[in-house]
Structure formats: C-alpha cells, structure tokens
C-alpha cells in the first residue's frame, strides 16, 4: 500500500505492506539510522519521532504513520542543538544507539526545557547504550537545558 506522510520535513509517499513494521519501510527508504536491535521496543535504537513523540519503529506498523510527521536522525540539521551537544559532550561510543538517544532527548527537551537529572534518567529509560555512555549522554542533555 501507499502511505503518504511528512518524512523528515518533506512530503513523501512510501510503499509498504499493510502488516509491515515501520522500521523495515524506513530502512528501505535508506534511512539506516533506524536500527533493528531488540525487536521488542525495549532498547530504543529504532526510535523515530512521530508528530514529535518518540516511538519504537519496530513496534509500529508502517500504515500507522499515514498522514503524520515522521522524523529520523537523517532529518536533523547539522546545526541541530541536541545533536551538537551529543557531539561536544562525547556522548557516544559505537554510535549505534545515538540517533535514538538524540531523538528521545529532543522530545524530552521540547516538553521540559529544563529537566532535572531524575527526569532525564526517566525519559531516557527506554533507550539502551551497551557501551555505557550514560553519564556523558545526561551531560549532553543538560547542556541543552535552558
């Protein structure tokens, strides 16, 4: 089926089966920052923003984003303040989980511009970093706080 959506700021039409997960449809579009990892929605490595809300693309059917706005890491500007903060705080190691963390942090900061440490830890609870970069990830989020 054809799915019309706003993908990374542009009107787009993607092809997907009705029973297909969003992650597979997005990867077919070349959006390889969306990464299959746990398949259960617990690790956050396939996080994308749907209407500014972070969701797991491995648990979302592709047709569910019809008519909605979808943002992946590829849709962020190089000047994106959250991405820049991650780079400046060295808040990554292998980088596999980083796009998901950046998008989750963006959603948190949009809702709570000055989150407490507890709120940061809670908001990032659905994203796993096996390299264990959490201290610097929290630091990156704090750098963006107003």
């Amino acid at each position, binding site marked *: 089926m054809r799915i019309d959506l706003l993908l990374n700021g542009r009107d787009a039409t993607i092809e997907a089966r009705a029973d297909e997960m969003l992650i597979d449809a997005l990867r077919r579009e070349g959006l*390889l*920052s969306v*990464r*299959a*990892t*746990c*398949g*259960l929605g*617990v*690790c956050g*490595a396939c996080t994308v923003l749907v209407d500014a809300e972070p969701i797991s693309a491995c648990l979302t059917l592709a047709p569910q984003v019809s008519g909605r706005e979808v943002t*992946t*890491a*590829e849709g*962020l500007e*190089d000047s994106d303040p959250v*991405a*820049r903060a*991650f*780079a400046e705080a*060295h808040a*990554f*190691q*292998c*980088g*596999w*989980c*980083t*796009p998901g963390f*950046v998008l989750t942090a963006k959603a948190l900061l949009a809702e709570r511009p000055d989150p407490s440490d507890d709120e*940061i*830890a*809670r908001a*990032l*609870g659905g*994203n*796993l*970093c*096996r*390299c*264990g*970069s*959490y*201290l*610097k*990830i*929290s630091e990156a989020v704090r750098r963006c706080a107003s």
Partner: protein
Amino acid sequence: MDARVSGRARYAVDAERPGMLHAAFVRSPYPHARVTSIDASAVPRDCVVLLGEDVANLGPYGCQVKDQRVLADPARHIGDVVAGVAAASPGEAVAAAALVEVEYAELPAVFDPVDAMAPEAPRVHEAAARSADEAVSIGVRPIAGSNACHRFRIRHGDVARGFAAADVVVEQTFRAASAAHAPMEPHAALAEWEGSRLTLWTGTQTPFNTRADLAGMLSIPEESIRVIAPPMGGSFGAKTFVRLEALVACLARKARRPVKAVLDRADEFLTLNRHPAVVRVRIGARRDGALTAKEVDCWADTGAYADCGPGVATKMGYAGVGPYRIPDVRVDSLAVYTNLPPNGAFRGYGAMQSVWASERTMDILARELEISPLELRRRNLLRDGDEFATGEVMRDVHFEECLQAAADAVDYEADPRGKGLCVLLKGMQTPSRAAIAVERTPVGYVIRSASCEMGQGVRRSLQLLGAQMLGCEPGQIVVPDPDTDTSPFDTRTTSSRSTYMMGRALAEAVRDLRRGDGERGFGEIRNEGGLDPDTGQGVASTHWHQGAAAASVSVDEETGRIAVERLHAAVYAGRVVNRPGAELQNEGSMLMGLGAALFEGIDFADGQVTNANLSDYNLPAASDVPRLTHELLEREGAEVHGLGETAVPPVPAAIGNALASLDLDLTELPITAERVLAAVDARAARRAGLEARR
C-alpha cells in the same frame, strides 16, 4: 558532525552487494544430538540450501582448538547450526529454513563444568581435537578422556609449606553466571566470491585470525581471502574469531552469489556468551596478615566449542592470584566443554570471574584475622621489584595508589560499613605483534591499521597520536577500515592492547617515514612472552592493567533490593591519549561490571536459554546508573596502558564486599534480590547459632 551522532555511520549490517541473498539457519533444538536425516525438498527451488554433504570435504576450524565444523553433526548445543538457507529476502530465508525437516537422535548432555569433569560425564567431543597453531599463543593442554580442552597450571613455591606456615586458612567456592555481550549491533557478515577469491565484510575484532582460520578450513591460501571490517555497533568480545563468516562463505560459494547473514536477538544468545565459572579459593595468612599460600581452582565452562576458552581459563587462572606477594601458589584452571552455547572472549577475559572469587575471599580472610580489608590488602600488595606468581618481576606498579584512591573516594577508613573494595591485575595479550603503515597524501596522511573500531575509539586515538607525531591536525589523518589486503598485520583488537601496541608501532612508522622519502613509513612492534601452561611460569603480560574499585551500598532487607549509593574506580593509565575516550571506557566498564554484579545472567533450562531477549535479560539503563565516579592515574613519562576493560572486574567484588561488611555473604553472581534474602536468612541463622552457644 560525527557520523555516529548524525546517524550516517554504517556498520556490517548495512553492507550490501548487487544480487546478494540473505541467510537463515536451521538450528538444533537439542543440546546434544546426532543428525539422522535432513529433508530439504520442501524448500522453494529459488533458495539455496547448505547441507552436510556440501561441506563434508572442508576442514575443521577454531581459534585455539580446531573443534568446529561449518555445519554441526552431532549438534552440541541448542542452536548449533545443522543447515543453512539463502533466499532473496531475510523473511523468505527464515520461512525456507523452517521448511527443512531434520530428524535427530538425542545424546546425553551436560550443562555444568564441574559435572562435566566427572568420570562418567557425557563427552561433548569424542576425540581431543587438534590444537590450532596459527592464532594460538598458548600451548593448549587437553586432558585426555575428559571434557577439559585445556588445563592451565601455576606451580610457584610449595603450597603445603605455605599452608603449614599459616595461622589462618579460609576457603570458599564462588560462581559467576553466563552473560550476554549484547552488542546493540548483532553479528553480521557478507561473503562474495569472485572466482577463487573470497571477500568478507564482517563486524570483527579479529580480521587476520578470521582470515587464517577460514583459509585453513577452505584449504586455500590466506591471500585468497580478503576481510574488510567496518566499525562495529559494539562487540565487547562477541565479534572475535570465526562466527558467521564460515557459513556465509560456504552459502555464497554454493549460491554463486553474495550472501549476507544478520543474527536476530534471540540467536545472539546462542552464538557466543561469557564463560560461566566456578572458582574455589583457599588462602592462608599469618596472624599479622602476611599471605603465605594460595590455591585457585577454576572451572571455566567454555560450552560446546573451545573458541578461546583455553586463553580465558589461563587469564582467569593467573588473575585469580591477585596483585599480591604470595610465596607459595598453586593454580589449576580448566576450560571445560559442556552442551551450552559456546563461550568466548568477554570484556575482562575471565578476570571478572576469578577476581570476584579472589577478592571476596580476601574480605573473608580479613574478617577471620580481624584486620581491616584495606589494611590486609596494603600489607600484601605487589610493589615495584616484587615477583608475581608467574615469576615475573613487576615494574611500574601502582596497585596501592589505585586501591587507596578507591578507598578514599568512599571515605572507607572513616567508616567501612556498607562499603567494599577490590583491587586487581589483568594481563594483556602476550605475545603479540602490531604493524602499521603511514602514507602521505596531498592533504595529510593515511594511517593503515588493522585495529578495529567498536566504539572504544581506536581510530580517534590513532588520529590524535598521529597528529602529535606528524605535526598536523587530527582531521588531516584518515584511518580507513581494517582490510587484510591493505592493512599491515595485527594480532587482533583485544585485551585493551591497541592504543599501546599500535601507538608504539606508529612511532616506528613515523620514524621510518622521516628516515626515508617522507612519503611512506612502516612500523612493527613485537612483544615476546607467554606462559608455560604446565607451570604458569614465564611472561604473562608485557605490562599490567592495574585498577581498583570501591562501592558503597544499602540493602533493603525486606525485599533484598540493593541500592548502590556510590561506585568509584581508579585505573592506572600511564598516559592518557584521548581523554573523553578513556573516560568513556572507564564508565562503560563500570556499568558492565554493575550489570554483572546485580542483574546480568543468562538463564538456562536443560541447555535452553530462557531469557534470550532484552526484556528478560536486563542491561543497565540510564536509571540504573548510581553515583559513579572514576579516575585515570597518570605518571610523567609513563608508557600508555590499555584501559578498555580494567574497571569491569573489580565492580562485582567491590559490591560483594560492601555486602560482606554488613555480614551478608554472597558467593554467586549476579547478586539477585533472592540471593541477598538468602544471605540475610543465613546471617540470622548464624547469629542465632552464636546466641545459642552463649
């Protein structure tokens, strides 16, 4: 913007070749079973099926013991691959694999390394396999007629004499569960043949070992194989030696098309895990705390195949001695086959399991001697010029500084209640060899090295070191992906050796470039050494990874829940090359240690993994991070010390000893709430017993 932040980083899972097929595997549902028949007639004709007859003429492989075949028969663990399928899409491959009908005849199985050493235990491998000669750096010593594929021993002094001289002797047996590396990127490999030449794109820490092992298996020259190693989305030891590469190479040869395999998360738990281990420690001391003798017995469960289990058992063995002056030492460390999935290199390489046992025992001894655990360690720590149990004379020794720094961070001396310490030594791959090439370009330099990037930042370290040595900006230095066709030889990217070994090779290469035409330079470093596997004497490590940790905990004795209030690690770095990278290594190591301490363990039921997903197998998340600090000890003029793993092994023992300070004795990892409650009950029973005697 760094490609890892922007999402533009590409990994082996993203590799593609025109016309490529996707692989899926048929796995044994039995822990030990002969394949009696395979019927693949239901598989669609446009799929390619790899069966036993296709690989019958191929040799065995294995990095330290050649005990593996491309397709298993008998299957030796649940998940052992008995057939492969390649199809146009991953989904079609999985569907086709499900249509392969396999019949099995079950064989008796064994799941515990101590049980597996019983005389009547089922044999996992009928005959002792041939030792691998290429990748191996230790003499493998199988015990004939048993499941032990390797026995490492240290014989240093005379332990009978040492125990006779002791006023106090304590003994305790400890266990550590298996654990999942759980790199976020699963294993992925893509193979393509052009005539008789094989190219592999694979997430690996061991491109040259993989090439050598595959060449032996395929009976082709090593130069006929090219291994390209893109950056990994984490590895932690999981992506070492031959994993999927043999399977995709054989499928691609039969299909006459490129074939790629990407494991799903459940299959990760069947591919390579951490060695579950049983470690028994017996230690004697005089009343003044001076250690007189120590015995360490390790059973490292290497699962269905040896992989690098002999190396892990070796390192487990000597790390279990600890950084102490002990006149009389005996170590017997076994790598034992069982019918669990294979276990291999895991950040810490066996040290965590034996450090857990050894350092917990130190606190038990301290209690018996009524000496502070900190003071007992201080009185026995190795210092410059002391001899270790391997006969090595120790230089550049900083154990006491590391330990004191850890103790001070939790204010241990003011009040040790609820606090625990651990100090450790860990060796680096010895002997080993690293070579590197530098080439001038119009805009800077290219550095060619087979050191593999897995998030530890080796590429950045080479850029920083290169910029310093060559007098340019780090950004002017390009470090391409390791490629066995163009990168000089390197033993492998393991044991925290890359910055140290490659850094020195790079200094050689830059000297060579300056001496020559200024266009290209080549440098090579060889570190000689190794231990005699029968006596444990020799050179275990050309330098030592030294560290300590301290933990402060509180316990909810109603629920068994532990709160780690504070965790600190001090690691000797010598000289830091890439500060944020070094900090990330310490932080990541401590969190992996925290997972090992409190919640990470693979659960098995008769050889079947029962928590093979990231919902039931818990990894540390942001909200699990305690108040965590660390420091990197540096010394003017010191050489670079690897620090990629040092802070993993001390964390579980520091937490265990913090519990011991509350009279809660834990002997098994992970320290689950159930185990804490059992320790609370045991303490109550002990106290009641004391009360009754009064």
